[in-house]
Structures are given as structure tokens and as C-alpha cells.
């Protein structure tokens, strides 16, 4: 019986940690895009405290998860029960007041409007938390001894997660490279410096830093000045680990294109 009672602790802990991480990363990446206004608890509060609400939520989740993992204190277990019961209430409220808002449970992945599945998931989680109230040991030993009850709990949660389908769709229908935010300029510059065309040209360059850099479609261009005054321009493809690199040398006075070297791939 003790096995049954403690079996749901790992699922609760993992889910709490995942939720906290996803919320924090959403706040860090999407804060200024105004997407927060459409996410879960943040949809119910005024705009200026959206970010604090999500952060407080994430910190609370982390505290509960740590407590469940290492201690047997009933305080953390009751906190988990209270947390998931409150989540259920918040989701019902979001569904009633902002039918267009996502639940935000896992940050911006949960942007789809709150459905019955999301609510059923928090109800199931509340049930699991209640079950764990009477567990004897802390959470970490249960990780060592996986059981069928634990697997059953995980399956129930997976079935009730609309985010899974969302992630599969995102992988299948990824925006084309031209519309995706590219890697940072330093990363692209590092890729350029490990490429063949760079090795051919870098000794003739007047400076190691480009004097101009810009992105167009799926290419990032770096313009360097050569010692003899001509411009060397490198174009680095923004997709892939070892991207294609093209290079051309353009005379300074010449306004027309004068590609001296044929395109080379790294």
C-alpha cells in the first residue's frame, strides 16, 4: 500500500519543476512581445504585475517540488494539494472570464485556450497530491524504484496534456528559416571563422572584426576591409551546424558586382 501512496510523488515533482522552468523561460524570452497577456493567471491580473505573478508562481512550484523531494514534512504535501486545487480554480476562472487565453501551465507552449483536458489534468494532479499525503518516505527513493502505479500516473498525465500535440505540431510545421529568429551574430561569426573561405582570406583582411554586418532572408553578411582597400564580403547560411559560406571580393570604387572567387561551401 505504501508503494501506491508514494508512487505519484515523482510525477508531481517532475511536473512542478518543468512548469517552473517553462514559466521562467517564457518570461525571459517573450516578455516584451506582449504574449503574456494571453497566458493563464497572467490573463487575470493587470498588465504591470503579469511578470511578477508568473515568477512567483514558478518560485512556489520550485519550493514545493524541493520539499516533496527531500522532506517528509506534511507542510509541503498540503502545499502541493492546495497549489493544484488552486490551479484547478484558476483554470476554471480563466475559462470563464478569458475563453481565448491559454492556461500557461508550461509557459507559452500552453497557449491553446483552456479546455476540459487541462482542467482534468489539474484535477488528476490534485488527486495525486492528496494520495501522497499519507506516503511514508520522501520523494527521492521512489525515483529509484519505479513501479507500475507510477507509469499509470504518467500515462494519465500524458493523455491529459494538450501541450504534447502542440510540440509535435511545432516540430512538424516549423517556420521557414527566413522567418525564424537567427542565432546571435557572435555565433554566426564563430561559424564563419571556422570555415574554409575564412582561412583563405583572413590573412589579407585589415581588421579581424567586420565593419558591417546584416541579415537578409536566411543569410548573414559580414563585410571586411582588405589591406588593399577592396571589400571582402562573406555570406553565412543561418541554418545547420556547418553552414554554407560564400565569399566575394568587391572593388571599392566599383559599384557593380565583381565576384572574384567562385562560391565555396564549408
Amino acid at each position: 500500500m505504501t508503494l501506491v501512496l508514494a508512487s505519484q510523488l515523482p510525477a508531481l515533482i517532475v511536473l512542478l519543476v518543468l512548469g517552473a522552468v517553462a514559466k521562467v523561460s517564457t518570461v525571459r524570452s517573450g516578455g516584451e512581445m506582449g504574449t503574456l497577456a494571453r497566458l493563464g493567471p497572467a490573463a487575470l491580473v493587470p498588465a504591470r504585475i503579469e511578470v511578477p505573478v508568473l515568477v512567483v508562481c514558478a518560485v512556489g512550484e520550485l519550493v514545493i517540488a524541493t520539499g516533496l523531494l527531500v522532506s517528509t514534512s506534511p507542510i509541503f504535501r498540503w502545499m502541493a494539494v492546495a497549489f493544484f486545487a488552486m490551479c484547478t480554480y484558476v483554470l476554471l476562472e480563466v475559462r470563464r472570464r478569458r475563453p481565448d487565453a491559454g492556461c500557461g501551465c508550461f509557459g507559452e507552449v500552453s497557449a491553446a485556450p483552456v479546455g476540459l483536458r487541462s482542467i482534468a489534468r489539474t484535477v488528476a494532479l490534485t488527486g495525486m497530491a492528496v494520495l501522497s499525503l499519507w506516503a511514508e518516505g520522501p520523494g527521492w527513493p521512489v525515483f529509484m524504484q519505479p513501479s507500475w502505479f507510477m507509469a499509470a500516473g504518467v500515462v494519465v498525465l500524458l493523455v491529459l496534456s494538450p501541450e504534447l500535440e502542440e510540440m509535435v505540431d511545432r516540430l512538424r510545421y516549423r517556420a521557414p528559416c527566413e522567418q525564424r529568429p537567427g542565432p546571435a551574430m557572435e555565433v554566426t561569426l564563430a561559424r564563419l571563422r571556422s570555415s574554409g573561405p575564412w582561412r583563405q582570406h583572413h590573412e589579407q583582411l585589415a581588421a579581424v572584426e567586420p565593419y558591417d554586418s546584416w541579415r537578409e532572408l536566411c543569410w548573414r553578411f559580414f563585410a571586411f576591409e582588405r589591406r588593399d582597400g577592396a571589400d571582402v564580403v562573406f555570406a553565412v547560411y543561418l541554418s545547420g551546424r556547418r553552414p554554407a559560406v560564400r565569399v566575394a571580393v568587391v572593388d571599392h570604387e566599383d559599384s557593380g558586382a565583381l565576384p572574384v572567387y567562385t562560391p565555396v561551401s564549408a
Partner: protein
Amino acid sequence: MGYPSVERRRVLAAAALGREAGVPGSGEGDPLRAVMGDILDISPHLITIETPEGAEERLVIAPWATAWHGGDQAPSDLPVGSTVIMRTLRDGRVVERLWADITRLTGTILSVEGRKDLSVQLDCGPHRGRRTIVIPYRATGRIMVRHARFEPGFLFDAIGIRKGEASLALLPATSQPAYPARAVPAPPPAYGGLQSRVSGTATWSDVFDEEDRGAAYPMVERSDVDCPDAEVSCTGLPYLALGSMLQVRNICTDRSANVPIVACGCVAGRFCDRCVECDTSPRGRIAELSPFSYVELGGDLVKGCFNAQIGLG
């Protein structure tokens, strides 16, 4: 990192990728030319202006020409001393449309004050700063009916006239989007890869340099243009750079032109509206043109937008 010469980028990019560098200019059709200047003298058939370079020019006013100065007027009624933008035919000699002292007020509402005449403070984006405008009492009805959320944080777009230092908003330029300025909807998912042509609406703005031909484009990389508000659009736009050549086609008049991107369209990208100039366009502002480019593509400054299609020139 500065931009030593954005025109140079076009040449360099074309050389690296082995393609033709686009040239600015208009395409086929009887070319329209935009001319700008201060009115020195005007009669029903002839207008004399002083151009921004200081030269004096005399142009013929076509018999069918119309003028706008806060409302439709006969060209000869325009006040001497006002700044006019004109659409001209025959190599810039014959005027067929005149807009006097026209200005466009686009931005996010920061504050609204006043009871009869409203004084509105607008945030026009990181490059354009703040602007205080006045909505005269007679225009409040027309403007408010198209701006349902007339409160701080929401978008504002109107066309008006400059009177001395003040800018008066007279006509709404769009139906205000229903979301706050910082909550622009995400673009629809791109299923079939990148489209070579993107449709939407093209608007104009008067914050470009005088007589400049160019466009502001929302989808430019933030680190390239040093603009924290860029990369926002509700249309699936490809990333381009300052200096890239944009082929803009006015679907309503079937004119097209190559226009260089000269600014970051961080305010235009926040508008997810449609243009109903000749048909209902898809949502989203894909380019904000300088008045000269806009007029030469056959757009009417008072209408505020045209249905457009863009491609890489």
C-alpha cells in the same frame, strides 16, 4: 556597429550570392512623380513653389486637379506659404493632385487630456520619439468612432494637417486594432514554406527625410538596427535588412516600384489591420512608405493605405 552605407550592402550581398543588385525606381506604366515644396504663388492654372533645395519651380495645374487641405478644396484656394506634396504627370510638369500641410499621426497613446479639444500624447516608436497632437472638437466624433479603446496603451492612427507647430488630427487612418500595442497577435503558422510574395497593406508616414524614397519594414533583426521593438508583425514576413530592396506593388493601381528599406518599421508592425482601399487586403502592415514613394505608387495620402504585395526586388 554603424551602417557606413546601406546602399553598399546591396552591391556586396549581390556579389556574394551571385545575383543581380536591384535598382531603385518604378516599373512599367506612365510614371508618376511626386514633387514637394512651399507655395509661393497659386492661381487656378499655375503653381509656383520653392523646393526644399531652394529652387523655384512653376508647374501647370491640370483642369481635373483636386486639392486637400483639411478637406477637399479647389487648388487655387490653398494658402500661400503652405507645404504641398503633389502628384504630377509628364515628367513632373503637370499637377493632378495636391495635398497641403498633410501629416500622419501614428503611434501608441500615452495620455489623453482635455474635454472639448483633446490633446493626445503619442509614442511614435524608439526612433521617432514622442509627439503631442490635438484633436479639434469637430473631428473627435469621426476619430473616436474608429478608435474604440481611446486610452493609454492602445494604438492610434490618424491623418491631419500641420498648423504652425501643432498637429491637428482630422481623419481616422484605420480602424483601431482591438489589442493593446504590446500584445500583437502572432503570425499564422507557415505551412507551405516561404511565399515569394506577401500581401497586406502599405501605409505612409511623414517622418522620413524630405524627398526621400524608401520604406520602413517591420521584420529587421533587432541587433542590426539597434531597435528593441522590431521583429514584430502579425504577417509571416521574412527577415530583411536596412538597404535591402523591396519590390512593392500597389494592387489597386497596378503600379510597382523597387523601394529600398531605410528604416525600422517598429510601429507599423504593431498594426494588424486591413486596407479596404480597393478590396479587403489580408491583415498586417507589410511596409510603411515615405510620402514620395507612396504617391509615386499611385496612393492617395488622405486614404492612408493601399493594398500591396511585396517581394524581394
